[in-house]
């Protein structure tokens, strides 16, 4: 049983083995109990409960106070491409555009101020670059995921 998950460090290849009723990975064991409850026995002998949920392609996992998530990559699909632009983290309104097309900016420079969830959010350059396109003006409503501006 092999699965590929996407992570910040690149694709993670996971190969499960089975030991009687248990799934095994790196010495950790997992057993399913009634109605999908997953009981883990860690390599160090401790037991804990895992909660899981899949939302879209992403598996969310909680155990011992920690929450992790990984996108599952369908076998055969190519990895997700990095987008070049800066996208709106949530629906909101553009309050201010702090740069103009053609500006050269340093990583960390403020580019745009967005209002969402009754708070102001400052969109900051993630790297040095040049602003090539600005897709919205002050006062515009933006949908979640909309590309706000392009940085090259």
């Amino acid at each position, binding site marked *: 049983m092999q*699965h590929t998950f996407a992570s910040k460090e690149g694709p993670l290849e996971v190969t499960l083995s089975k030991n009687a009723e248990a799934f095994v*990975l790196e010495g950790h064991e997992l057993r399913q109990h009634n*109605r999908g409850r997953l009981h883990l026995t860690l390599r160090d002998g401790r037991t804990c409960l895992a909660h899981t949920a899949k939302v879209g392609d992403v598996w969310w*996992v909680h155990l011992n106070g920690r929450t992790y998530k990984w996108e599952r990559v369908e076998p055969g699909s190519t990895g997700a491409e990095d987008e070049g632009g800066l*996208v709106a983290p949530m629906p909101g309104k553009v309050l201010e555009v702090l740069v103009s097309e053609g500006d050269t900016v340093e990583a960390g420079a403020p580019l745009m101020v967005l209002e969402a969830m009754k708070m102001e*959010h400052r969109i*900051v350059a993630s790297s040095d670059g040049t602003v090539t396109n600005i897709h919205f003006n002050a006062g515009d409503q933006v949908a979640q*995921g909309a590309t706000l501006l392009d940085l090259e």
Partner: protein
Amino acid sequence: MANRGEIACRILRACREAGHPSVAICASNDAGSMFTEMADQVVLLNGETIAETYLDQQQIIQAAKDTGATAIHPGFGFLSERAEFANAVQSAGLTWIGPSALAIEKMGDKMTARQTMRAAGVPVIPGEEVEEVDETKALDALREASTRVGYPLLLKASSGGGGKGMRAVHAPADFDQAAAGARREAVAAFGDGRIYIERLLSGSKHIEIQVLADQHGRTIHLGERECSVQRRHQKVFEEAPGPTMNPELREAMGQAAVAAAEAVNYVGAGTVEFLLAPTGEFFFLEMNTRIQVEHPVTELVTGVDIVREQLRIAVGEPMSCGDLMLRGHAIEVRLYAEDAANGFLPSIGPLAVFRPPEGPGIRLDTGVREGDDVTPNYDPMLAKLIVWAPSRHEALQKMRRALDEFVVLGTTTNIEFLRDLCDATPVVNGSTTTTTIDELWPNGWNPPSAPLLEEAALLAAASAETLGLHRRQTNGVAASTNDGPVSPFTTVQRRFP
């Protein structure tokens, strides 16, 4: 019930226990929300925006009249500190569950409040207000005042609250941008751009005193809460009693709070906020003329049901609580839908799994439950987790267990940040101040590494995929198959002013 979310749930439950039939109001995007299930009747409001719904005074008063309601509880936020709403409610022949419009007005305007407090002999922080409306003139006047107040300083909206329209400024170079931002937020949030400037007292504790006053002339205090742990002036971690408080200081601050309340003929539940400087001096910050988010910690250590007392006081009964009797220690943390590891950016998504911790000494005041969606329509505070134990040490232990067992999947929350906070030295020692979080994580917070758990979590994800748990119920609940955005924040780095 002129409110929504967790505070509406809290108050509607109290109404049901007291035997008062209740009416909820809700915007169409709140139809089916948890709080609507706790009322005996629900009125759907017309309108789309918050201004057209939860802030529409006439529509809310009409809903009360139409359903035969006799009183309105405003909760906190929304219309709770609008003097003209208190007036309108009373003019409509309804009981207003709160202090008089005059008291709200005197305390709501920060500058009037400072003057009233000075007259009542309550110490206030040195500062100045700027009344100018015109943008350019206002900014000039503010800049001028800033030189008299001195740095570091704090810009605050005169009508403000909840950290909105508030900015800390450490050097003159940052002043202009901060002032413009504060004014803009203040206008947007409160329709009032007046700003005042206050000296920023670094290393201070935020200590607030809960007061109760009935219509029979009795005004009492219920001891203090310490709410020093704040992020951008939003409280995060609140406790009672204050870990460094002593009975003499409690009595002095309690008496100052009672004097503040009596100075405006206060009726109902209110909170007088103070800054407690490292010198032991305390200064009046402001009075919140309503129930507060963090009222549960006071309830747990005093044994007083503050909301039930509000209901009693509003109908003219004497309050039922006797002498102050503090016992044990209570801590509250605020659960936000936000990505603490990514500059605390608000997050949205489905609450595919939402399993609060259980067991003795744990209280959850929530406005959401499993299966709900977190949307950008309202405040990202989902719930408050409160624990009580015989001692502060045990309360922290209980909070750690509670946070470890709190499972929320599908929406990123600040649970792990709160859990990490419980291990921070100033929190363990009780030496927290209003700058603790900035000092602990000057470059932002990241979860501590736990490679063993991460491996085990990967095993769980791979096993769940193999078992096909997403195609059937997991842990008794169907995993959400919502295809909406999962982590909209991965492609862009973000920092905050």
